[in-house]
C-alpha cells in the first residue's frame, strides 16, 4: 500500500531548533516527508527502461547517485546495491512515482516499495561539516576521495547511514538515517559539533 503522504510528524521535527544552533559551522536541516521508494531491478534492459520514466538514469557505478528532473520533478537515484536503488523525490508523489516505475518495469523481475518513512533525510553543509562527520565516519570524505555524486552506506557513530556527497566543492552532504535512529543521530551531531560552534572556521 502506497499512500500520498506529505505531512504528519517527522522524526526530527522536535530537533529543528537545536540543530539550527549548529550554524554557521555546520548547517543541519531535516528534509521531511520526501518520497522514498526502494527500487529493485536486475535486468539491464529493465534498468535502462526505468531511466526515461524517472527522467534520470539509474546510477551505473556502485556507491554513487544520479540526479535529474523528470515528470515527478527533481529526483535523486541512489545506488544501494547491484540491483537496488533508492529513489528520492519531492513529498507526495509516492503513488504516481510507483505507478510510473511499475509501468516501466513491466514483467521484469523487480520490486518497488514505499519506504518514505523508513528513513529521514538531513541536509548537511558548512565549513566544518567534514570535521564533524570525521568524528564518527570512517569513510574518507576528502573531495579527492569522495567527489560530488558519491553515495555510501556506512556507519556514523553507531548508526547506519546513507551519505551522499551532494556538492563536494560547496561542502554539501545529504544524510539518510533510519527513523528510529534519527534522534540518536541528532544528539550525536550536536555533541560532535560542540567544539566547532565555539570556534567557527
Amino acid at each position, binding site marked *: 500500500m502506497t499512500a500520498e503522504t506529505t505531512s504528519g510528524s517527522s522524526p526530527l521535527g*522536535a530537533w529543528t531548533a537545536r540543530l539550527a544552533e549548529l550554524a554557521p559551522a555546520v548547517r543541519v536541516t531535516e528534509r521531511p516527508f520526501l518520497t522514498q521508494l526502494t527500487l529493485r531491478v536486475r535486468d539491464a534492459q529493465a534498468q535502462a527502461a526505468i531511466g526515461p520514466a524517472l527522467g534520470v538514469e539509474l546510477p551505473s557505478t556502485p556507491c554513487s547517485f544520479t540526479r535529474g528532473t523528470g515528470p515527478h520533478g527533481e529526483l535523486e537515484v541512489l545506488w544501494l546495491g547491484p540491483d537496488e536503488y533508492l529513489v528520492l523525490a519531492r513529498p507526495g508523489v509516492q503513488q504516481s512515482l510507483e505507478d510510473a516505475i511499475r509501468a516501466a518495469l513491466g514483467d521484469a523481475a523487480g520490486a518497488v516499495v514505499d519506504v518514505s518513512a523508513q528513513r529521514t533525510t538531513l541536509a548537511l553543509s558548512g565549513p566544518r561539516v567534514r570535521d564533524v562527520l570525521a568524528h564518527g565516519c570512517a569513510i574518507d570524505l576528502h573531495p579527492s576521495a569522495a567527489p560530488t555524486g558519491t553515495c555510501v552506506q556506512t556507519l556514523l557513530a553507531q548508526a547506519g547511514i546513507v551519505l551522499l556527497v551532494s556538492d563536494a566543492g560547496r561542502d554539501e552532504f545529504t544524510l539518510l538515517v533510519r527513523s528510529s535512529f534519527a534522534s540518536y543521530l541528532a544528539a550525536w551531531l550536536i555533541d560532535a559539533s560542540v567544539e566547532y560552534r565555539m570556534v567557527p572556521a
Partner: protein
Amino acid sequence: MTANFRLPVGGRVNRDEALRFSLDGRPMLGYRGDTLASALLANGVHQVATSIKYGRPRGIMAAGVEDASALVQIEEPFPEPMMSATTVELYDGLIARGLPGQGRLADRPDPARYDAKHVHCDVVVVGAGPAGLVAALTSARSGARVVLVDDQNQAGGALLGSDEYFDDLGSPAAWVHEVLAELRATPGVLVLERTTAFGAYDDGFLLALQRRTDHLGAAAPKDVARQRIWRIRAKQTVIATGAHERPVVFADNDRPGIMLAGAARTYLHRYGVLPGRRIVVFTTNDSAYTAAIELAETGVDVPMLLDARAVPPEGLVAECAARGIEVRAGHAVTGTEGREHITDVHIAPLAGTGHPDTIMCDTLLVSGGWNPVVHLFSQLRGALRYAPELGAFVPGEELPDVQVVGSAAGALDLASCVRQGGEAGRAASEAAGFTRPAPVPLPTSDARVAEAAAMVLWQVPEGAEPTADTRFVDLQRDATVSDVLRATGAGLRSLEHIKRYTTIGTAHDQGKTSGMIAAGIVAEALGVKIAEQRPTTFRPPYTSVPFAALAGRDRGELHDPVRITAMHSWHVAQGALFEDVGQWKRPWYYPRPGEDMADAVLRECRAARESVALMDGSTLGKIDVQGQDSGEFLDMLYTNMMSNLKVGRIRYGVMCGVDGMVIDDGTVIRLAEDRFLVTTTTGNAAKILEWMEEWLQTEWPHLRVFLTSVTEHWATVPLVGPRSRDVLASLAPELDVSNEAFGFMSWRDTVLDVTGGVAARVCRISFSGELAYEINVNAWHGRALWEALMAAGEPYGITPYGTETMHVLRAEKGYPIIGQDTDGTVTPQDLGMSWAVSKKKPDFIGKRSFARSENNRPDRKQLVGLLPANPATVLPEGAQIIESAHLPEPPVRMLGHVTSSYASAALDRGFALAVVRSGRDRIGETLYVPVADDVVPVTVTDSVLFDKEGTRRDG
C-alpha cells in the same frame, strides 16, 4: 627549603609564566613548558615515589615515557592514577602525590569530554625528530596527504635534548621551526603534537592518543575534548620513533638521583635544569661523554666518568680531561649509598688493574646503550633481529607499506637519521602515487660523533650472590636479577614465560628500560645467544590509554543508540517506564500515581481482557517480500506453507535453522500474488533479514524475490480487547468491521478518520487471545493515530499497556516468546506447534532435522504451564524444576526450567511457562521448583491457561 637547580638562562620553558604545584603537600613553582619531573628537579626534588614491594624511595630516572619509577597520583584538578611525572606537563594548580605503587581512581564521574576522529592520509609519520621531520616534509612536498604524529608538546625529538649546531641552518630549533612552518602551511598536512601513536594495526591503521587540554589544568575549556583518539588510516607508514636509553644493572641502582645520561641532557637543554651539583657518569658507550662534557661546561662538578670499556675513545677522553673530568676506563659502578638521594657511588675495575673506590656525588648518570623504539613495528607483526653492536632488537624484516627510520632502526647519528628520513619520505610518497621529486636539504650538525664501538653490558658482575638483592631490573615491579635467576633456575627458558614469572615488563611502562636487560641477563644465565631467543611480543598500547579516551563520546545518552518509535514522546509524556529490547526503548508499563509495577500491570491486563487497550507495536521487524517467486521462497523459510495463503489473509509462521530449532516467528500477510509482508520479533529484525538474504543470495539467486526492510516505515498499534471493534469502527467509517466481513487472520486497507484521513492497513491478529486489530500507518502519522485511538476509546476506558502486560497476556495463552521461552535448542514440536509445521511441503529449512532421532526423543524438553500450589506464588524465571519435594544430594537431576512467570489478573493467581523433560506427558503431575531455601510444589498444565477454545479472539 627549596633548592634551586634551574639555570639562570636556557631551556624551552617560559620563565614569564610561573606555575604553582605541589607534590605530597609541598608547594613549589615551575614554569610553563616544564614537565612535573623537570619542575621537581628544578626544586631539587629527586624522590617522587616509593616502590610497590619494598617501599624503597624512587626518583626520576628518565625524561619521557620510558621512565619506570617516577609515578604520581594526580589529585587536582581531577584524580588520575599512575601518571609518570616525566610525561605530565606542568600546569598551574597541579596537586600530585607520590605513588606507593598503585593509584586510585576517582570516585566521581569524569566531567571532561573525550572524542575520536578519523583521518585519512597517504603517509603517516610517527615521530617528529630529525628523521620524522625530514620524512614528513619530503612527503608533503610531493603533494601527498601527510599526518605527522609526535608525543611531545613540540617537535624536535632528540634535538630538544641537545645543544648541537646545524652547520648550514643555525640552531636545531630554527630548523625545526622552519620545517614545521612549511608543514603547517602545506594543504593536506596535519601535524599532531602531544599525540602518542599507541597502536599499529592492519591495513595502515594507527591509533593515537592526543592530549589536547591536559596541560591547561583547571583552565582547560570545558567544551573542548580533553583527549582525542585519532583513528589514522594511511597508505604508507613511516616509523621514526627514536630510541630509549637503557641503564646498566648494579647493586642499589634504584636510588633517587640515578638517572639516564641522555635524560640529564634533556633536563639541561630543554628545561634549563641541572640534575645535581656533583655528578658521576657511568657508561658503556660514547653518548654519555657528551652529557658529562656539557654538564661540566655549565659549571657543575663532574669529577669522574666511568667507562666500562677497557679502551675509551681518545678524543672524548681528551675533551673530558680539558674540563677536569677524570675518565676511568674498564670501571663500573658496583653499588651506591644514600636513602632519599644518592650520596656515594662504589666503583671497581671490571677486570685488570685498578682498585675499588668510593666517590661522593649527588647524581649518577648511567648509559647502557640505546634500545630502538620498535613497538609499532612489532605490533604490526614485524620480526625483530638482535643487533649485537647495539645490544638491542631492531626491525628484522621488510613490511609492506611500512618503513622504520632513524634511531628506531638503530641509526644513532643525525646524518643517518635525516638521510633515512628523506629516503623514506620519498619512497612512501612514490608508493602512494606522488612522483613529483621534492628533495629536502638535509641538515648537518656539529654534534660529537661516536668514535668507538659500544660495549654491551647488562649488569655489573658480582662476586657472590647477595642475600637481599638490590640489583633492580624492573624498578616498577621491584624485580631483581635474583628474580630472573630464580626463573631460569626453575627451568624457564622462554622470555615470555620468564616475563610472566618475574612480572618484568608487565608494569605500566611495559618494560621499556627493563625488557632488553632481562633478555640479556636470561641469555647469560642460560648460556645462550640473545639472537636465538625470541623477544617478547610488543602489544598495543605503547603507553597507557585512559578508558575514558577509548570510550570517547560513547557515554551517557550516546553510549548505545536509543531507537525510538513515532509515538515515543507520548509514552514519555505519560510517564511510561521503559524496557530495553535490543536498542529499542519500549514502554514497559504506565504506572498511575501510587501504583507499583504489579498494580499497573494487573490494571493494564484487566483493561485488555475486559474492555480495550492499546500498545506500541512499531518495533516489530517488517520485511516486504516481493517478486514472482515469493511464495516458493517463503515456503522454504517458514515451517508452514505460505504459497497457498490467499491474498487478504494472514498466517502465523515459524522459522527454524537448518538444525530444526526455532529462530523466529511472526505473521505473514499476503498483499498480492507476488507480494507478502512478514513480521519478525523486535530483537531479531536485522538478523532475520540477513538470514533470508543469505539464503536468497547464496543458495537461490535464481528466485525472483526482493526483500526490503520496512520496519520503520510503519507505525503499528495493536488494539486489543472486547471493545476494540467499537473503537476501530468509530475511526474507520469505510471499514466493515463485522466478524463476517473482517474475520480473524485477515487484513484490510482503509482510510482512518485521523487528521483528515490517514491510509491504514488493519490486520486482525491477536497476541493476547482477545479480539484484536493491529493498525499500521505511515510512521509520520503514528502519533496522530495513537492520540485518535486514545480519544475514540475514552468512553471504554481505553488503556495503554506496555511490554510487561503484553507478556502476561500472551503467556496466559501459552504463546511463546522466541528467545525467552526458547534458547536455540527448542523445536516447533517442543513448543506444541506441530500444527505450524507443514506435512505437505517436500522441504523447508529445518525439515530434515525433525527426522533426526535426537529430535524425536520422548524426553525432550517441552513447553508446558506450571501452576504453583500457592496461588500467590510467582516463580522466579530461570528457576530449575526437579522431581522430588526435597532437594536431593548433588548431582540433582534437572527436568527443565521456568521460562516465563507472572501474576495473572485473569487467572487470579501466579502462573508460569516452563520447558520440562517429557513435559506434555507430565500434565497433571506435581513437580518441584527450588526457590531459595524453599521447594515450591507446582502442577504441570497445558501451556494454554486462558480461553483454550479461543472464543474471545474469534468473537
